[in-house]
């Protein structure tokens, strides 16, 4: 076997082509400027930008973050400058790199999701990621993601207005993720991303108060990886949609787990906080894994779990 043989890393995904399967996860990467100082954003398969809403949102008061065993809780609360400011101030910067731009959107109502889909499609993003799974806001968010009918309604409304592929981001905070996956597939989704964070909580035993200002937050990091792999596995068996898998991916082997479970692409998030170039080492590690295992096309790993 030739260890230096080229590996085809390109992945067709919901009508687009990812130059490689490694993306960065929404909410961990801002709009790319900060980590853009540390590596070439053009090496990423896609950038999923910080969650956008129609109007600017201030987010939640601090503390917004708490460390947990191999994970962290966050309660940022969708702080963002609003979709129009994103299109005006941030998208042109991201467009300077050879990577796909995925706009993550959240609304308080179905109509807001639809309006965002129209605005951002026209504004020139490559794909929409519909966030029906944010645990850190009062209205919308997770409420849409835990009821199949609501999830389908949001998906349908977004699809009517979107002129780019629509990926729906699912929450693990449900009894049956396959049911949610089927609901958004039937409603016309082009792809799924999963998982969003798990709802968690930490308590300061000295003050007897929650560590986070809002009490609960979203758990991410390696702590949630087995849950995420399981969710991808179950969703992949329930629907025919391409899947972007995420949740605690910190090295190439982690990414391979997601691919084998049925993901077509992966997203790296919390791992960035520990290693600012983690997506690149994961991409390089994936290539090496393929070379060492005689794999010439990364796509053949998707769903290649032996059972």
């Amino acid at each position, binding site marked *: 076997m030739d260890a230096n043989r080229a590996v085809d890393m390109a992945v067709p995904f919901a009508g687009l082509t990812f130059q490689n399967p490694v993306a960065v996860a929404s909410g*961990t990467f801002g709009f790319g400027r*900060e980590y853009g100082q*540390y590596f070439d954003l053009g090496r990423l398969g896609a950038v999923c930008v910080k969650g956008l809403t129609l109007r600017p949102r201030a987010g939640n*008061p601090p503390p*917004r973050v708490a*460390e*947990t065993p191999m994970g*962290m809780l966050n309660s940022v609360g969708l702080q963002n400058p609003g979709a129009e400011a994103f299109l005006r101030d941030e998208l042109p910067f991201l467009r300077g790199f050879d990577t796909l731009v995925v706009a993550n959107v959240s609304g308080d109502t179905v109509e807001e999701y639809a309006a965002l889909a129209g605005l951002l499609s026209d504004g020139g993003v490559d794909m929409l990621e519909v966030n029906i799974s944010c645990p850190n806001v009062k209205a919308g968010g997770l409420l849409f993601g835990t009821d199949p009918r609501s999830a389908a309604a949001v998906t349908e409304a977004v699809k009517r207005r979107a002129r780019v592929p629509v990926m729906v981001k699912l929450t693990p905070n449900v009894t049956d993720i396959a049911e949610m996956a089927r609901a958004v597939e039937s409603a016309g989704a082009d792809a799924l991303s999963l998982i969003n964070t798990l709802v968690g909580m930490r308590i300061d035993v000295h003050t007897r108060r929650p560590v986070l200002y809002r009490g609960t937050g979203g758990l991410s990091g390696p702590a949630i990886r087995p849950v995420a792999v399981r969710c991808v596995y179950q969703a992949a068996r329930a629907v025919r949609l391409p899947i972007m898998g995420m949740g605690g991916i910190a090295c190439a082997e982690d990414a391979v787990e997601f691919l084998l479970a049925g993901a077509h692409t992966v997203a790296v998030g919390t791992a960035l906080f520990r290693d600012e170039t983690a997506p690149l080492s994961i991409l390089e590690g994936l290539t090496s894994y393929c070379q060492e295992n005689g794999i010439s096309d990364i796509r053949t790993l998707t769903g290649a779990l032996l059972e």
Partner: protein
Amino acid sequence: MTVTVLSNENPRPGAADLRVRVDASAQRPRAGQFAHIACGDALLLRRPISLCDCDEEAGVWRFVFEYKGPGTRYLAARKPGDTLDLLGPLGRGFTCEPEGPPTLLAGGGIGVPPLLLAARRLTGAAHAVLGFRAAPLAVLTDELASLCARTAFCSDDGSLGTREFTDAVVRRLLAETAYARVLACGPRPMLRAVAEAARAAGVPCEVSLEERMACGVGACLACACRVGREAGETFRRVCLDGPVFDAETVVW
């Protein structure tokens, strides 16, 4: 970057004085900036630690910090020769202008260390007020005294310097001397009181804020603080927009 521990001492119980060797390519840190340091394989998040001092020629960075949680305890336990993974220098630092009127440094407790680098950058054009709860908790007093033209100490119990709060001494010095600005680092109530004293004297004031942090580079928005009264109380990022802020913009 990977750095090598040169020394790690205990200036007092509960505090560490860590020196590391950095790459020749490391940026020159400004006073008030921090390094985001990974704390072993068992902890997910890096810890932000203020630069206390640096020797550019020797390539040495120094951190003086209190150890309380698992991250800082890990750092305090490193031995010479161990390596650490750190990102930095990060954030917005203090304004240090050696020319013109002197600058007043106001430090409270474990907020004192970054003022040492400020005093060095000010090359003698600094006065300092250093407050501690009690004498046994004091750090860096001799070094700051040697770098500053004038140094005043105070403590909550009178065991070091005068028995009063830092802002009271700051108020007195502001009445005596025309300062270019006040640079403050310490617990939030102290910062607020010092900022009020500076405002009353019509002297610009910069404060170094703290918040629980994740990415350290401005991407994740975890370390929010309310800053920007004019802009309508928006959340800014302690890691990138700070940690040093114009005191007038902080919403206390």
